[in-house]
C-alpha cells in the first residue's frame, strides 16, 4: 500500500533518545555553535517521553559527562548519590554466601568517584540540554525503517499511526513521516531493530565475534528507613545462577539511592543452556537470599522492568559506519561488561560520532560516503582503550564460570592492567546454546510470597506498559508454525519463560496447542529477538508511544 508521506530534511537525524543519542545531539550542536555553523538535529524516541524506555542499573561513571558538560553540577544534572561503599558477594547457595575481601576485588569493579543514578532521569536532563541547544526531540515516534537509496542511508521513516490489527487503515490513520538527513545516527540501544538490519545489510559484523547478551531484570523498592544506607553498592555472583559451572551465568546488584529508594536487579546471561530456566523466576527467588532480603523486608516494591544488555564488548563490535550513517552506544555494542557499565561508554561513542559528523558537515560532506573518521577517532579515544582492557571478561566467564573466570579477570585487571597478551573469543551465538528439553532438568521455582517475590503479571503492571490494542502485532514470526511444530517439542517453547512480561503463552489441549502472543504486555526488552533458538521472532517497533512508562529506572 503506498501512502503519501510528509518529508522533513535535517542535517542529522538521531534514532533513540538514550545516553548515546542525546550525547550525540548535544555534541553536534555544541561543535556547530563553536564553529559558527548551523546544523539541524532531530531526535526520534519510541517511548512516550524521553526516559520512558530507559532501564539501567545504574552506577554511573561521570567521565563522558564531565567532557560533555563540565558544568553539569551547576546545570542541575541528577547525580545525587555518590557511591560510599562497595560490597561484592559470592553466593554459594540460597542461604549462604561470602563477601569478597577488598583485596580481591578487580580494579574494574571499584566505584570511587561514581554515582548511583536513575539513567532515565539523566536522559530527561540530557534531553532538556539538547532542546536548549536547539535540537528537536520527538518522543512518541518510532523509527520504523531506514531509507536506503543507492546503497546510502538517507534517513528514516517514522512508523504509521492508526493501523488496525489486520493492517488496514483506521479512520484516524496518520502516515509516518520521512525524516531525511545527511547523516543518521542509530542509537537504539541493545539489539536495535534497525541496527540489526543495517549490520546484516552492510555486513558490518563480518570480522566480529557474535554479539553476546544478557537480560537484566530490575525493581525499585522503598525500604524501611532503618535498613537504608545511601551510597551502598552490593554486587553479587553465583546463586541462583552458576558460580563454578557455566550453564547459567550472570550477576546481581543492589543499590541504595536517596529517599529510602533501593534498586535491586539480576542480569542473566542469555548464553544459558537449560530451556526450563526462567530469568524472571530466578530474579524473584534471588531476592529471597538473606543478604538481599534483609534490605527488602518490610519495604514496598514500586516498579519493575527488564531490558537486554550487550556484553560482547570489543571482540563483538561491528564496523561503526556505513554510507550515510553510523551506529552508536549499545546499538554498536559499547557496553563494558567487566564493569557492567554502558552509559558512559554509550555517551562517549555518541560524542565521537558527533565530532566526526560535524567535522564532515562543516567540510561540506553530503553523507554519501562512509565516515571513516568515526572509526579512527574511536580508536584514538579512551573508550577504545577501556574496552580493549575488558575484552577478555565475557569470553573468560563463559569458558571458566564466575569463580575461576573471576580469578583470571582479577589477574588480568590488577596485574596486567587489562592488557593480557592474548585475547579470548566466544564464537557461539546465544540462540544456539539451549540444550533440548529432553536432556534438561525441569526447574521448580518457589511460589511467590507476595511480599518479596511476585508473579509476572503483577510485575508487568508495575512497568505501566501500555500499547494501543488494535494494531498489528509487533512481534513478527517469520514462520508462524515454528513455535508449536519445532520449539515446543524440542525446547518446551522457551519463550514462555524467557520473556519477562508473559507475552508468549502456549495454550490449548494436547494435540491442539496454539502459540499466543500478548503483544500489549511487551516491555521492549528484545530478549525474544535474541534468544529464540530458531531466530524466528522479529521485534519491530509498535505504534509510537507504546511500551513501558518507566519513571525513575
Amino acid at each position, binding site marked *: 500500500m503506498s501512502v503519501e508521506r*510528509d518529508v*522533513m530534511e535535517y542535517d542529522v537525524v538521531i534514532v533513540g533518545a538514550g545516553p548515546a543519542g542525546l550525547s550525540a545531539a548535544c555534541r553536534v550542536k555544541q561543535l556547530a555553535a563553536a564553529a559558527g555553523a548551523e546544523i539541524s538535529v532531530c531526535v526520534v524516541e519510541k517511548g*512516550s*517521553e524521553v*526516559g*520512558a524506555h530507559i532501564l539501567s542499573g545504574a552506577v554511573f561513571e561521570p567521565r563522558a559527562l564531565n567532557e560533555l558538560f563540565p558544568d553539569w553540577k551547576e546545570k542541575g544534572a541528577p547525580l545525587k548519590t555518590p557511591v560510599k561503599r562497595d560490597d561484592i558477594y559470592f553466593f554459594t547457595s540460597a542461604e549462604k554466601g561470602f563477601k569478597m575481601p577488598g583485596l580481591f576485588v578487580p580494579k574494574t569493579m571499584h566505584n570511587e568517584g561514581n554515582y548511583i543514578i*536513575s539513567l*532515565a*532521569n539523566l536522559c*530527561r536532563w540530557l534531553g532538556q540540554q539538547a532542546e536548549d541547544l536547539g535540537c*528537536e526531540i*520527538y518522543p*512518541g*515516534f518510532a523509527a520504523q525503517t531506514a531509507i536506503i537509496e543507492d546503497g546510502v542511508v538517507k534517513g528514516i521513516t*517514522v512508523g504509521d*499511526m*492508526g493501523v488496525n490489527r489486520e493492517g488496514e487503515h483506521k479512520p*484516524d490513520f*496518520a502516515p*509516518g*513521516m520521512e525524516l531525511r538527513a545527511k547523516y543518521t545516527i542509530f542509537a537504539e540501544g541493545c539489539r536495535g531493530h534497525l541496527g540489526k538490519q543495517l549490520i546484516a545489510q552492510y555486513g558490518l559484523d563480518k570480522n566480529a565475534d557474535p554479539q553476546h547478551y544478557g537480560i537484566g531484570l530490575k525493581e525499585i523498592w*522503598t525500604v524501611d528507613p532503618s535498613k537504608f544506607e545511601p551510597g551502598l553498592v552490593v554486587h553479587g555472583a553465583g546463586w541462583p545462577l552458576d558460580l563454578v559451572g557455566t550453564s547459567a551465568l550472570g550477576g546481581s546488584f543492589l543499590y541504595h539511592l536517596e*529517599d*529510602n529508594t533501593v534498586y535491586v536487579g539480576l542480569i542473566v546471561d542469555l548464553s544459558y543452556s537449560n530451556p526450563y530456566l526462567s530469568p524472571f523466576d530466578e530474579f524473584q527467588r534471588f531476592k529471597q537470599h538473606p543478604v538481599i532480603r534483609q534490605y527488602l523486608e518490610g519495604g514496598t516494591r*514500586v516498579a519493575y522492568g527488564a531490558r537486554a544488555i550487550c556484553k560482547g564488548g570489543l571482540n563483538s563490535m561491528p564496523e561503526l559506519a556505513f554510507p550515510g550513517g553510523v551506529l552508536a552506544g549499545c546499538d554498536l555494542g559499547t557496553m563494558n561488561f567487566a564493569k557492567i557499565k554502558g552509559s558512559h561508554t554509550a555517551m562517549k561513542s555518541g560524542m565521537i560520532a558527533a565530532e566526526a559528523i560535524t567535522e564532515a558537515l562543516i567540510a561540506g560532506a553530503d553523507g554519501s560516503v562512509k565516515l571513516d573518521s568515526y572509526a579512527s577517532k574511536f580508536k584514538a579515544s579512551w573508550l577504545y582503550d577501556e574496552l580493549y582492557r575488558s575484552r577478555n571478561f565475557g569470553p573468560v566467564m563463559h569458558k571458566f564460570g564466575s569463580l575461576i573466570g573471576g580469578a583470571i579477570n582479577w589477574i588480568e585487571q590488577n596485574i596486567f592492567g587489562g592488557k593480557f597478551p592474548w585475547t579470548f573469543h566466544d564464537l557461539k551465538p546465544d540462540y544456539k546454546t539451549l540444550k533440548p528439553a529432553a536432556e534438561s532438568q525441569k526447574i521448580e521455582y518457589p511460589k511467590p510470597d507476595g511480599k518479596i517475590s511476585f508473579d509476572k503479571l503483577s510485575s508487568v*503492571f*508495575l512497568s*505501566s506498559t*501500555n500499547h494501543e490494542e488494535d494494531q498489528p502485532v509487533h512481534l513478527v514470526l517469520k514462520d508462524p508454525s515454528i513455535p508449536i511444530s519445532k520449539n515446543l517439542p524440542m525446547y518446551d517453547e522457551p519463550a514462555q519463560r524467557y520473556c519477562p512480561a508473559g507475552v508468549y503463552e502456549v495454550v490449548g489441549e494436547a494435540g491442539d496447542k496454539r502459540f499466543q502472543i500478548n503483544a500489549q504486555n511487551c516491555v521492549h526488552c528484545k530478549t525474544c529477538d535474541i534468544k529464540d533458538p530458531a531466530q524466528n521472532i522479529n521485534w519491530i517497533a509498535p505504534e509510537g508511544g507504546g511500551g513501558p*512508562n518507566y*519513571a*525513575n529506572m
Partner: protein
Amino acid sequence: MKALVSVKRVVDYNVRIQVKSDGSGVVTDGVKHSMNPFDEIAMEEAVRLKEKGKITEIIAVTIGGAKGEETLRTALAFGADRAIHIKDDGEIQPLTAAKALAAAMKKEDAKVLLCGKQAIDDDANQTAQMVASLLDIAQATFASKVEIDGDKATVVREVDAGLETLEVDLPAVISADLRLNEPRYLKLPDIMKAKKKPIETVSLGDLGVTLAAGLKTTKTAPPPSRSKGVMVKTVDELVDALKAKGLL
C-alpha cells in the same frame, strides 16, 4: 468567535500513582506528565467546531510552572492557533485557576471556554463552575455533545438518569465529559509546526489575580491494599459465599 481552551499538565493516566513516604503528596519527580485527558477532549471539540466554521480562533491557556509549556505545545499541535502561559511556580488551586481563566476570558473577549469536567490529578470538578460564576455567565458541564449556532450553544449532558439537553447563551463555559469525542492522533508534522506557533507568557499579577491558598492538604494516603479474593467454582458456591458475608 474566539474560544479559550484550558489545558492542565497532570501526571499521565498510565502512571501508577505512588504516595510519598511522608504522606505529603504523591511522587511527581521523574514521573510522566501529559495533558489532562478531559482537556484533550475539550481541545478536540474546539478543533472540530473550528473545522465546522463555528469558531474562528482557538486560544489554549495553562496556569502553572515552566513545564506547562509542553502542554501548550501539545494543544498547539492539536490545532490551537496560539497559547497563553499564565506562569506561576506555586500550587494552583481551583479558585486561583478559575480567577485566572476568568481574567483571560475577559482579556481575550472570548465567547466560550471549553475545559475538562475534571482534572485527573485532584478530581476537584470545580474550575468550570467557578469560572462561570465569577463571570456571571452560563455553564453547561459534563457535555457529551456540543453544537454552536450563532450566540447559542446546545449541549447534551450525561446525568444519572440519562441525557439532558440544554440551550445556553454565549458567552458560556462548557466542560467536556469522556464521551464527547475521541481525540485525534497528533501528527508529527503538526507537532513540528506547533513549535513555531506563538506562546504569550503572563503572570498571575498581570491578570490581577493573587495566588490564593484556601485549601490545605493535610494528608495523602494510598487506598488500603485489597485482601486476596476467593475462587468459587459454581454459581451456588458464589451465592453461599455472598450469603456468608451477609451481602445477600
